[in-house]
Protein backbone atom coordinates (compact mmCIF):
# COMPACT_ATOMS: atom_id res chain seq x y z
CA UNK A 1 0.00 0.00 0.00
CA UNK A 2 2.81 2.43 0.84
CA UNK A 3 4.51 1.75 -2.51
CA UNK A 4 1.24 2.53 -4.30
CA UNK A 5 0.66 5.63 -2.17
CA UNK A 6 4.15 6.92 -3.00
CA UNK A 7 3.61 6.25 -6.70
CA UNK A 8 0.29 8.14 -6.72
CA UNK A 9 1.64 11.04 -4.62
CA UNK A 10 4.67 11.48 -6.87
CA UNK A 11 2.43 11.44 -9.94
CA UNK A 12 0.02 14.01 -8.47
CA UNK A 13 2.88 16.29 -7.45
CA UNK A 14 4.47 15.93 -10.88
CA UNK A 15 1.14 16.91 -12.49
CA UNK A 16 1.10 20.01 -10.28
CA UNK A 17 4.72 20.87 -11.02
CA UNK A 18 4.09 20.60 -14.76
CA UNK A 19 0.78 22.49 -14.76
CA UNK A 20 1.94 25.05 -12.16
CA UNK A 21 -1.64 25.68 -11.05
CA UNK A 22 -0.57 25.84 -7.41
CA UNK A 23 2.27 28.29 -8.00
CA UNK A 24 0.51 30.42 -10.61
CA UNK A 25 -3.00 30.50 -9.19
CA UNK A 26 -3.38 29.13 -5.67
CA UNK A 27 -0.43 30.99 -4.10
CA UNK A 28 -1.44 34.39 -5.57
CA UNK A 29 -5.05 33.69 -4.50
CA UNK A 30 -3.93 32.99 -0.93
CA UNK A 31 -1.84 36.16 -0.80
CA UNK A 32 -4.72 38.21 -2.19
CA UNK A 33 -6.97 36.83 0.57
CA UNK A 34 -4.40 37.92 3.19
CA UNK A 35 -4.18 41.39 1.64
CA UNK A 36 -7.98 41.73 1.60
CA UNK A 37 -8.18 40.77 5.27
CA UNK A 38 -5.54 43.41 6.00
CA UNK A 39 -7.54 46.05 4.09
CA UNK A 40 -10.73 45.11 5.92
CA UNK A 41 -9.19 45.22 9.40
CA UNK A 42 -6.41 47.77 8.99
CA UNK A 43 -8.21 50.69 10.73
CA UNK A 44 -7.80 48.77 13.96
CA UNK A 45 -4.38 47.08 14.10
CA UNK A 46 -5.30 45.45 17.40
CA UNK A 47 -8.12 43.45 15.82
CA UNK A 48 -5.88 42.34 12.96
CA UNK A 49 -3.20 41.19 15.39
CA UNK A 50 -5.69 39.21 17.49
CA UNK A 51 -7.39 37.72 14.47
CA UNK A 52 -4.20 36.71 12.63
CA UNK A 53 -4.26 32.97 13.50
CA UNK A 54 -7.92 32.66 12.44
CA UNK A 55 -7.40 34.63 9.23
CA UNK A 56 -4.33 32.56 8.41
CA UNK A 57 -6.19 29.26 8.77
CA UNK A 58 -9.23 30.51 6.85
CA UNK A 59 -6.85 31.34 3.99
CA UNK A 60 -5.33 27.85 4.29
CA UNK A 61 -8.81 26.26 4.12
CA UNK A 62 -9.65 28.20 0.96
CA UNK A 63 -6.40 26.98 -0.59
CA UNK A 64 -7.14 23.43 0.53
CA UNK A 65 -10.47 23.58 -1.33
CA UNK A 66 -8.66 24.55 -4.52
CA UNK A 67 -5.98 21.89 -4.06
CA UNK A 68 -8.52 19.12 -3.45
CA UNK A 69 -10.68 20.21 -6.37
CA UNK A 70 -7.64 20.24 -8.61
CA UNK A 71 -6.51 16.79 -7.41
CA UNK A 72 -9.73 15.24 -8.67
CA UNK A 73 -10.40 17.51 -11.65
CA UNK A 74 -7.32 16.22 -13.52
CA UNK A 75 -8.79 12.72 -13.30
CA UNK A 76 -12.27 13.64 -14.47
CA UNK A 77 -11.21 13.80 -18.12
CA UNK A 78 -10.32 11.28 -20.80
CA UNK A 79 -11.10 8.05 -18.97
CA UNK A 80 -8.41 8.48 -16.30
CA UNK A 81 -10.75 7.47 -13.49
CA UNK A 82 -11.56 4.19 -15.24
CA UNK A 83 -7.89 3.66 -16.05
CA UNK A 84 -6.98 4.05 -12.37
CA UNK A 85 -9.62 1.53 -11.34
CA UNK A 86 -8.24 -0.92 -13.90
CA UNK A 87 -4.67 -0.76 -12.58
CA UNK A 88 -5.52 -2.78 -9.52
CA UNK A 89 -4.09 -0.12 -7.19
CA UNK A 90 -5.65 -0.65 -3.77
CA UNK A 91 -8.16 2.14 -3.01
CA UNK A 92 -6.44 2.73 0.35
CA UNK A 93 -3.13 3.30 -1.47
CA UNK A 94 -4.80 5.66 -3.91
CA UNK A 95 -6.41 7.59 -1.05
CA UNK A 96 -3.20 7.83 0.91
CA UNK A 97 -1.23 8.95 -2.16
CA UNK A 98 -3.70 11.67 -3.09
CA UNK A 99 -3.94 12.89 0.51
CA UNK A 100 -0.13 12.97 0.74
CA UNK A 101 0.15 15.07 -2.43
CA UNK A 102 -2.48 17.53 -1.14
CA UNK A 103 -0.67 17.71 2.22
CA UNK A 104 2.69 18.51 0.58
CA UNK A 105 1.11 21.32 -1.45
CA UNK A 106 -0.61 22.69 1.66
CA UNK A 107 2.62 22.67 3.67
CA UNK A 108 4.34 24.73 0.96
CA UNK A 109 1.38 27.12 0.94
CA UNK A 110 1.43 27.38 4.73
CA UNK A 111 5.09 28.44 4.69
CA UNK A 112 4.38 31.10 2.06
CA UNK A 113 1.29 32.29 3.91
CA UNK A 114 3.35 32.39 7.12
CA UNK A 115 5.80 34.71 5.42
CA UNK A 116 2.79 36.70 4.22
CA UNK A 117 1.41 37.30 7.73
CA UNK A 118 4.87 38.24 9.02
CA UNK A 119 5.26 40.85 6.27
CA UNK A 120 1.66 42.09 5.92
CA UNK A 121 0.39 41.78 9.51
CA UNK A 122 3.71 42.42 11.27
CA UNK A 123 3.26 39.20 13.25
CA UNK A 124 6.09 38.00 15.48
CA UNK A 125 6.33 34.22 15.23
CA UNK A 126 7.15 32.16 18.31
CA UNK A 127 6.34 28.95 20.15
CA UNK A 128 7.99 27.11 17.33
CA UNK A 129 7.47 23.57 18.62
CA UNK A 130 3.73 23.99 19.05
CA UNK A 131 3.43 26.05 15.87
CA UNK A 132 5.17 23.46 13.66
CA UNK A 133 3.32 20.54 15.28
CA UNK A 134 0.00 22.37 14.76
CA UNK A 135 0.76 22.97 11.09
CA UNK A 136 1.75 19.33 10.50
CA UNK A 137 -1.21 17.76 12.29
CA UNK A 138 -3.74 20.26 10.91
CA UNK A 139 -2.40 19.69 7.40
CA UNK A 140 -2.80 15.93 7.83
CA UNK A 141 -6.40 16.39 8.99
CA UNK A 142 -7.31 18.83 6.21
CA UNK A 143 -5.75 16.61 3.53
CA UNK A 144 -7.38 13.47 4.95
CA UNK A 145 -10.86 15.03 5.10
CA UNK A 146 -10.42 16.90 1.81
CA UNK A 147 -9.45 13.80 -0.12
CA UNK A 148 -12.37 11.84 1.32
CA UNK A 149 -14.92 14.53 0.43
CA UNK A 150 -13.11 15.18 -2.84
CA UNK A 151 -13.80 11.69 -4.17
CA UNK A 152 -17.38 11.93 -2.95
CA UNK A 153 -17.95 15.05 -5.04
CA UNK A 154 -15.68 14.05 -7.94
CA UNK A 155 -18.18 11.93 -9.84
CA UNK A 156 -20.96 14.50 -9.67
CA UNK A 157 -21.72 17.25 -12.17
CA UNK A 158 -22.10 19.80 -9.39
CA UNK A 159 -18.74 18.95 -7.82
CA UNK A 160 -17.33 22.50 -7.94
CA UNK A 161 -20.12 23.88 -5.79
CA UNK A 162 -20.78 20.76 -3.74
CA UNK A 163 -17.26 20.30 -2.40
CA UNK A 164 -17.14 23.55 -0.37
CA UNK A 165 -20.60 22.79 1.02
CA UNK A 166 -19.45 19.37 2.20
CA UNK A 167 -15.90 20.13 3.22
CA UNK A 168 -16.01 23.48 5.00
CA UNK A 169 -18.50 22.39 7.71
CA UNK A 170 -16.51 19.19 8.20
CA UNK A 171 -13.35 21.24 8.69
CA UNK A 172 -14.93 23.62 11.23
CA UNK A 173 -13.41 21.69 14.18
CA UNK A 174 -9.98 21.95 12.51
CA UNK A 175 -10.37 25.69 12.10
CA UNK A 176 -11.32 26.05 15.77
CA UNK A 177 -8.53 23.83 17.09
CA UNK A 178 -5.77 25.17 14.83
CA UNK A 179 -6.72 28.77 15.60
CA UNK A 180 -6.63 28.15 19.35
CA UNK A 181 -3.37 26.20 19.15
CA UNK A 182 -1.78 28.87 16.94
CA UNK A 183 -2.95 31.66 19.28
CA UNK A 184 -1.32 29.83 22.17
CA UNK A 185 1.90 29.35 20.18
CA UNK A 186 2.06 33.03 19.30
CA UNK A 187 1.07 34.11 22.82
CA UNK A 188 2.77 33.83 26.16
CA UNK A 189 1.39 30.48 27.36
CA UNK A 190 2.00 27.64 24.92
CA UNK A 191 0.68 25.10 27.44
CA UNK A 192 -2.89 26.12 26.51
CA UNK A 193 -2.26 25.00 22.93
CA UNK A 194 -1.33 21.37 23.46
CA UNK A 195 -4.86 20.10 24.27
CA UNK A 196 -6.07 21.72 21.05
CA UNK A 197 -3.27 19.95 19.21
CA UNK A 198 -4.51 16.67 20.73
CA UNK A 199 -7.99 17.40 19.39
CA UNK A 200 -6.50 18.05 15.96
CA UNK A 201 -4.70 14.71 16.15
CA UNK A 202 -7.94 12.88 16.93
CA UNK A 203 -9.67 14.62 14.03
CA UNK A 204 -6.87 13.71 11.62
CA UNK A 205 -6.88 10.10 12.77
CA UNK A 206 -10.67 9.77 12.41
CA UNK A 207 -10.69 11.13 8.86
CA UNK A 208 -7.60 9.16 7.86
CA UNK A 209 -9.23 5.94 9.08
CA UNK A 210 -12.53 6.80 7.38
CA UNK A 211 -10.67 7.52 4.14
CA UNK A 212 -8.63 4.33 4.19
CA UNK A 213 -11.80 2.29 4.74
CA UNK A 214 -14.34 4.22 2.68
CA UNK A 215 -12.45 5.64 -0.30
CA UNK A 216 -12.88 2.52 -2.44
CA UNK A 217 -16.64 2.35 -1.96
CA UNK A 218 -17.00 6.08 -2.67
CA UNK A 219 -14.91 5.76 -5.82
CA UNK A 220 -17.18 2.96 -7.04
CA UNK A 221 -20.43 4.71 -6.23
CA UNK A 222 -19.76 8.14 -7.70
Amino acid at each position, binding site marked *: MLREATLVAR*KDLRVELRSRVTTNQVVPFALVVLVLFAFALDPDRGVLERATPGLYWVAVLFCALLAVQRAFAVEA*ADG*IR*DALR*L*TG*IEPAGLYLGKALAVAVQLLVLEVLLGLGVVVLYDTALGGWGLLIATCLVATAGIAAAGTLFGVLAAGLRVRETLLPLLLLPALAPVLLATTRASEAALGDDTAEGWPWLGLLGVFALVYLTAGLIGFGALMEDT
Partner: protein
Amino acid sequence: MEPVVHLRAAAALLGRFPALAGADLDVASGEVVLVRGPNGAGKTTLLRTCAGLLPVVSGEARVLGHDLRTDRRTVRRHVGLLGHGTGLYDELTVADNLSFWTRAAGADERDAVAALYRLGLAGRLRDVPVGRLSAGQRRRVAFAVLVARRPALWLLDEPHAGLDHEARDLVDDLVRDAAAAGATVLLASHELERAEPLAARIVTVNGGVTTEAAGVA
Protein backbone atom coordinates in the same frame (compact mmCIF):
# COMPACT_ATOMS: atom_id res chain seq x y z
CA MET B 1 -12.91 -25.38 -20.51
CA GLU B 2 -14.62 -22.34 -18.99
CA PRO B 3 -15.06 -19.43 -21.42
CA VAL B 4 -13.06 -16.27 -20.74
CA VAL B 5 -16.29 -14.27 -20.88
CA HIS B 6 -19.56 -15.88 -19.80
CA LEU B 7 -22.70 -13.75 -19.61
CA ARG B 8 -26.21 -15.12 -19.17
CA ALA B 9 -29.10 -12.66 -18.93
CA ALA B 10 -26.59 -10.26 -17.37
CA ALA B 11 -27.94 -6.83 -16.45
CA ALA B 12 -25.70 -3.95 -15.42
CA LEU B 13 -26.24 -0.44 -14.10
CA LEU B 14 -24.74 2.83 -15.26
CA GLY B 15 -25.12 5.00 -12.19
CA ARG B 16 -28.66 4.31 -11.10
CA PHE B 17 -29.94 3.51 -14.57
CA PRO B 18 -30.12 0.11 -16.31
CA ALA B 19 -27.49 0.00 -19.05
CA LEU B 20 -27.19 -3.63 -20.05
CA ALA B 21 -30.36 -5.68 -20.18
CA GLY B 22 -30.08 -9.42 -20.44
CA ALA B 23 -26.81 -9.86 -22.31
CA ASP B 24 -25.82 -13.40 -23.32
CA LEU B 25 -22.27 -13.96 -24.47
CA ASP B 26 -19.62 -16.66 -24.38
CA VAL B 27 -16.10 -15.93 -25.60
CA ALA B 28 -13.55 -18.72 -25.63
CA SER B 29 -9.88 -18.30 -24.77
CA GLY B 30 -7.85 -16.87 -27.66
CA GLU B 31 -10.96 -15.89 -29.61
CA VAL B 32 -11.35 -12.50 -31.32
CA VAL B 33 -14.98 -11.36 -31.25
CA LEU B 34 -16.35 -8.26 -32.96
CA VAL B 35 -19.20 -6.45 -31.22
CA ARG B 36 -21.32 -4.38 -33.55
CA GLY B 37 -24.46 -2.32 -33.21
CA PRO B 38 -25.85 1.16 -33.84
CA ASN B 39 -24.92 4.20 -31.73
CA GLY B 40 -26.23 3.82 -28.20
CA ALA B 41 -26.82 0.10 -28.62
CA GLY B 42 -24.72 -0.78 -25.58
CA LYS B 43 -21.38 -1.82 -27.12
CA THR B 44 -19.32 0.37 -24.80
CA THR B 45 -21.46 -0.68 -21.85
CA LEU B 46 -20.88 -4.34 -22.69
CA LEU B 47 -17.10 -3.81 -22.77
CA ARG B 48 -17.10 -1.78 -19.54
CA THR B 49 -19.20 -4.46 -17.85
CA CYS B 50 -16.71 -7.14 -18.93
CA ALA B 51 -13.91 -4.94 -17.57
CA GLY B 52 -15.59 -4.95 -14.15
CA LEU B 53 -16.28 -1.22 -14.22
CA LEU B 54 -20.07 -1.46 -14.03
CA PRO B 55 -21.99 -3.34 -11.34
CA VAL B 56 -23.84 -6.44 -12.55
CA VAL B 57 -27.17 -6.60 -10.77
CA SER B 58 -28.73 -9.77 -12.14
CA GLY B 59 -27.96 -12.80 -14.27
CA GLU B 60 -24.69 -14.69 -14.53
CA ALA B 61 -21.47 -12.82 -15.34
CA ARG B 62 -18.03 -14.40 -15.15
CA VAL B 63 -14.81 -13.07 -16.67
CA LEU B 64 -11.55 -15.02 -16.51
CA GLY B 65 -13.21 -17.34 -14.01
CA HIS B 66 -14.16 -14.53 -11.60
CA ASP B 67 -17.71 -13.57 -10.75
CA LEU B 68 -18.39 -9.98 -11.81
CA ARG B 69 -21.02 -9.63 -9.10
CA THR B 70 -18.60 -10.33 -6.27
CA ASP B 71 -15.04 -10.07 -7.53
CA ARG B 72 -14.81 -7.16 -9.96
CA ARG B 73 -11.53 -5.86 -8.55
CA THR B 74 -9.69 -9.07 -9.42
CA VAL B 75 -11.10 -9.00 -12.95
CA ARG B 76 -9.84 -5.45 -13.49
CA ARG B 77 -6.24 -6.46 -12.84
CA HIS B 78 -6.31 -8.95 -15.71
CA VAL B 79 -8.16 -7.04 -18.42
CA GLY B 80 -7.02 -4.18 -20.61
CA LEU B 81 -9.58 -1.64 -21.82
CA LEU B 82 -8.97 0.91 -24.54
CA GLY B 83 -12.10 3.03 -24.43
CA HIS B 84 -13.11 6.36 -25.94
CA GLY B 85 -10.79 8.12 -23.49
CA THR B 86 -7.09 7.38 -23.53
CA GLY B 87 -6.65 7.44 -19.75
CA LEU B 88 -3.56 9.63 -20.02
CA TYR B 89 -2.61 12.76 -18.07
CA ASP B 90 -2.37 15.77 -20.39
CA GLU B 91 0.09 17.53 -18.07
CA LEU B 92 2.58 14.66 -17.97
CA THR B 93 4.99 13.79 -20.74
CA VAL B 94 4.72 10.59 -22.76
CA ALA B 95 7.59 9.12 -20.71
CA ASP B 96 5.94 10.12 -17.40
CA ASN B 97 2.63 8.58 -18.47
CA LEU B 98 4.27 5.34 -19.57
CA SER B 99 6.23 5.18 -16.32
CA PHE B 100 3.22 5.81 -14.08
CA TRP B 101 0.71 3.54 -15.80
CA THR B 102 3.05 0.60 -16.23
CA ARG B 103 4.27 0.80 -12.64
CA ALA B 104 0.70 1.18 -11.37
CA ALA B 105 -0.28 -1.99 -13.23
CA GLY B 106 2.88 -3.88 -12.26
CA ALA B 107 3.97 -4.02 -15.91
CA ASP B 108 7.37 -3.54 -17.51
CA GLU B 109 7.89 -0.01 -18.85
CA ARG B 110 10.31 -1.34 -21.49
CA ASP B 111 7.43 -3.26 -23.09
CA ALA B 112 5.47 -0.02 -23.41
CA VAL B 113 8.43 1.79 -24.97
CA ALA B 114 8.92 -1.07 -27.43
CA ALA B 115 5.22 -1.00 -28.36
CA LEU B 116 5.40 2.76 -28.81
CA TYR B 117 8.26 2.41 -31.30
CA ARG B 118 6.37 -0.35 -33.06
CA LEU B 119 3.38 1.98 -33.34
CA GLY B 120 5.59 4.50 -35.07
CA LEU B 121 5.75 7.15 -32.38
CA ALA B 122 9.22 8.62 -32.64
CA GLY B 123 11.51 8.77 -29.60
CA ARG B 124 11.66 12.58 -29.75
CA LEU B 125 8.09 12.66 -28.44
CA ARG B 126 9.06 11.00 -25.15
CA ASP B 127 9.46 14.34 -23.39
CA VAL B 128 6.43 16.03 -24.93
CA PRO B 129 3.37 16.56 -22.68
CA VAL B 130 0.53 14.30 -23.82
CA GLY B 131 -1.74 17.34 -24.01
CA ARG B 132 0.29 18.57 -26.97
CA LEU B 133 -0.07 15.36 -28.98
CA SER B 134 -2.62 14.82 -31.71
CA ALA B 135 -5.59 12.54 -31.02
CA GLY B 136 -3.99 9.76 -33.05
CA GLN B 137 -0.67 10.06 -31.20
CA ARG B 138 -2.45 9.95 -27.85
CA ARG B 139 -4.25 6.82 -28.92
CA ARG B 140 -0.94 5.18 -29.84
CA VAL B 141 0.48 5.96 -26.38
CA ALA B 142 -2.63 4.44 -24.78
CA PHE B 143 -2.20 1.37 -26.95
CA ALA B 144 1.42 1.06 -25.85
CA VAL B 145 0.34 1.05 -22.19
CA LEU B 146 -2.27 -1.61 -22.98
CA VAL B 147 0.29 -3.82 -24.72
CA ALA B 148 2.73 -3.53 -21.81
CA ARG B 149 0.07 -4.71 -19.36
CA ARG B 150 -0.22 -7.99 -21.30
CA PRO B 151 -3.85 -8.48 -20.30
CA ALA B 152 -5.50 -11.87 -20.67
CA LEU B 153 -8.58 -10.12 -22.09
CA TRP B 154 -8.32 -7.14 -24.45
CA LEU B 155 -11.39 -4.91 -24.58
CA LEU B 156 -11.09 -2.49 -27.49
CA ASP B 157 -13.71 0.18 -28.07
CA GLU B 158 -13.34 1.65 -31.56
CA PRO B 159 -9.61 0.86 -31.62
CA HIS B 160 -9.09 2.41 -35.06
CA ALA B 161 -10.74 5.74 -34.26
CA GLY B 162 -8.51 8.75 -34.84
CA LEU B 163 -5.66 6.73 -36.34
CA ASP B 164 -4.12 7.16 -39.79
CA HIS B 165 -3.99 4.28 -42.27
CA GLU B 166 -0.51 3.17 -41.24
CA ALA B 167 -1.33 3.17 -37.53
CA ARG B 168 -4.52 1.20 -38.18
CA ASP B 169 -2.49 -1.52 -39.85
CA LEU B 170 -0.10 -1.54 -36.88
CA VAL B 171 -3.00 -1.84 -34.44
CA ASP B 172 -4.38 -4.76 -36.46
CA ASP B 173 -0.97 -6.45 -36.23
CA LEU B 174 -0.91 -5.94 -32.46
CA VAL B 175 -4.38 -7.47 -32.11
CA ARG B 176 -3.41 -10.46 -34.23
CA ASP B 177 -0.19 -10.93 -32.24
CA ALA B 178 -2.08 -10.74 -28.95
CA ALA B 179 -4.56 -13.37 -30.12
CA ALA B 180 -1.73 -15.56 -31.40
CA ALA B 181 -0.10 -15.30 -27.98
CA GLY B 182 -3.28 -16.61 -26.37
CA ALA B 183 -5.05 -13.39 -25.38
CA THR B 184 -8.78 -13.06 -25.90
CA VAL B 185 -10.03 -9.96 -27.71
CA LEU B 186 -13.45 -8.34 -27.62
CA LEU B 187 -13.60 -5.35 -29.94
CA ALA B 188 -16.42 -2.96 -30.65
CA SER B 189 -16.34 -1.09 -33.92
CA HIS B 190 -18.41 0.70 -36.49
CA GLU B 191 -15.74 0.17 -39.09
CA LEU B 192 -16.82 -3.30 -40.07
CA GLU B 193 -14.66 -3.52 -43.18
CA ARG B 194 -11.60 -2.94 -41.03
CA ALA B 195 -12.64 -4.99 -37.99
CA GLU B 196 -14.32 -8.04 -39.55
CA PRO B 197 -11.10 -9.59 -40.92
CA LEU B 198 -9.69 -9.58 -37.38
CA ALA B 199 -12.66 -11.38 -35.85
CA ALA B 200 -13.57 -15.05 -35.72
CA ARG B 201 -17.12 -14.20 -34.72
CA ILE B 202 -19.53 -11.26 -34.69
CA VAL B 203 -21.98 -10.41 -31.94
CA THR B 204 -24.68 -7.80 -32.42
CA VAL B 205 -25.81 -5.65 -29.52
CA ASN B 206 -28.98 -3.58 -29.53
CA GLY B 207 -30.76 -1.94 -26.64
CA GLY B 208 -28.22 -3.42 -24.26
CA VAL B 209 -29.12 -6.95 -25.36
CA THR B 210 -26.95 -9.29 -27.41
CA THR B 211 -29.32 -10.35 -30.18
CA GLU B 212 -27.29 -12.18 -32.75
CA ALA B 213 -24.09 -14.13 -33.23
CA ALA B 214 -22.62 -15.12 -36.54
CA GLY B 215 -19.42 -16.85 -37.55
CA VAL B 216 -17.22 -15.11 -40.04
CA ALA B 217 -14.16 -17.36 -40.01
